[in-house]
């Protein structure tokens, strides 16, 4: 073995170290570039799948055959039913002179509910008094929509006429926990009975559709929660005020948005938005304030105000966890894989909701199960699991299973992407400005 002088050895070590230092950023850069490419491909694939699902759902909607069988149900006395180009069905019976006599009319009215359009078929007598109503099509969350039948909501419409206002809170009672659906049903019936009157009843005086803008306690509380959480979030220098303020916001969320109003943010809201099923803003201002507030505040502040502050279900988990001192548990080895599982579940539900045009069915969160005691048996099992799990792990549902976390995270990603793009453009502009 040849003797290497000490100085030569030091120089060699120095050179190797420098080479490693030079090589390290390259490999990191390569890794990042590879990761970006992979993310880009995944985003593109996800976008294409979503677009495909949207298209499939779009092509499968508006099936006229859906009415088959329903018209006879709402015009039970008619021996012959004819339809015209206005969508009016006229039921007739044969009179004593052999001539047909009108026994009633029917028409479909459509309004957007919680999960999408609700098509209501309304049957009237020849004078325009409602004799029967039938739900032809809906995309609401099944457990919530069944409430309308359970409280005999539809019965309120029999005997009413096109001249009545048919507004919730006026001559029609709403249904707690299914307000959006009830509102849409009433709107669909109103549209249908007034359509019958204008098409079939001579001299019918139809009242103007003066829907009042629904701005009350729910909307005020929601706006207040957004504003207070936004302000508190900025209070970095006053951690005590921020801490107690956050607990107050969370308690308000549980009590008001959860138990009193039962109007949490769910995946169905997101799918309805993507499917283009936007409810009437005058009756559903809360829906627009909730979605708009989350989008706007997350885009401006970079922090999602809803999930960590006033989501009633998240707050319930945190309150339970505080009883036992539950800590976050995110094992490094598997956490990223579990996050992909969460994203996969959310994505699957969104794709199904869009392709089958049933946004209401995508809500697998047990929010309604807790706050309205409505849910399928798996949701009850999930609820019990989450409530017990909250005593051990900090917010287990939010961290591992909630479908909204990836959705809101995606908004944050878009924000970062836009911000980076804007900064790059600005830098490029300032560089080109300096050039001669």
């Amino acid at each position, binding site marked *: 073995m040849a003797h290497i002088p000490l100085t030569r050895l030091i120089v060699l070590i120095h050179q190797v170290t420098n080479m490693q230092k030079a090589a390290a950023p390259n490999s990191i850069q390569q890794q990042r570039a590879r990761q970006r490419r992979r993310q880009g491909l995944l985003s593109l694939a996800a976008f294409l799948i979503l677009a495909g699902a949207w298209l499939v759902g779009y092509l499968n909607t508006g099936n006229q055959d859906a009415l088959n069988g329903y018209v*006879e149900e709402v015009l039970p006395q008619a021996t*012959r039913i004819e339809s015209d180009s206005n969508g009016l069905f006229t039921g007739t*019976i044969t009179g004593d002179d052999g001539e047909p006599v009108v026994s009633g009319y029917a028409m479909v009215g459509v309004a957007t509910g919680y999960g999408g359009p609700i098509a209501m078929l309304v049957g009237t007598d*020849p004078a325009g008094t409602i004799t029967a109503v039938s739900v032809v099509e809906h995309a*609401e969350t*099944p457990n919530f929509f069944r409430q309308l039948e359970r409280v*005999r909501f539809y019965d309120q419409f029999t005997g009413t006429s096109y001249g009545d206002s048919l507004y919730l809170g006026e001559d029609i009672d709403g249904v707690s926990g299914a307000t959006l659906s009830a509102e849409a049903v009433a709107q669909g019936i109103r549209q249908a009975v007034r359509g019958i009157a204008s098409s079939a009843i001579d001299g019918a005086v139809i009242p103007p559709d003066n829907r009042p803008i629904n701005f009350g306690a729910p909307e005020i509380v929601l706006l207040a929660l957004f504003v207070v959480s936004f302000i508190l979030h900025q209070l970095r220098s006053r951690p005590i005020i921020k801490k107690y303020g956050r607990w107050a916001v969370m308690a308000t969320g549980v009590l008001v948005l959860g138990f009193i109003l039962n109007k949490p943010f769910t995946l169905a809201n997101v799918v309805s938005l993507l499917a283009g099923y936007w409810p009437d803003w005058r009756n559903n201002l809360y829906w627009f304030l909730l979605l708009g507030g989350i989008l706007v505040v997350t885009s401006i502040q970079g922090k999602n105000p809803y999930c960590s502050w006033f989501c009633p279900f998240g707050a319930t988990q945190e309150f339970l966890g505080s009883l036992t001192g539950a800590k976050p548990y995110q094992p490094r080895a598997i956490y990223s894989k579990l996050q992909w599982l969460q994203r996969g579940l959310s994505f699957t539900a969104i794709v199904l909701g869009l392709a089958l045009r049933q946004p209401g069915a995508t809500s*697998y969160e047990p929010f309604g199960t807790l706050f309205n005691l409505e849910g399928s048996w798996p949701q009850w099992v999930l609820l019990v699991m989450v409530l017990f799990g909250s005593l051990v*792990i900090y917010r287990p549902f939010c961290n591992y299973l909630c479908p909204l976390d990836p959705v809101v995270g995606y908004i944050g990603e878009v924000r970062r992407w836009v911000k980076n793009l804007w900064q790059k453009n600005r830098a490029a502009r300032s560089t080109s400005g300096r050039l001669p």
Partner: protein
Amino acid sequence: MAKEQSRQIDKRQVALIAYLALGVAMILMTLVLAFTPETPATTQVTVVATRTLSPLVLTQQADYVTIGPAAHQGSGTGGGRGQHAEATPASTIESGTATPSGENHDTSH
């Protein structure tokens, strides 16, 4: 000592994975139940419209002394399109023309 600690970590991870697997199973089951065709989205939930006995049977059962003209026929505000102006007495419905509801319907959409 280190082995014991890693075993404990493994147990916690296994417990978490099992917990989440059960959660995922419940979520998938929820989605399956919500999207199945048996949901009310495709079934009729009419609660008001009910099929009565056929007019033929009703005519045969009717008490002809107490029956008057059908109140809704021809008594509406303004009268409907193609509707007879005069009330048609229920007792004079020809049995040959009255068919049970749901039969001989010509429903064109």
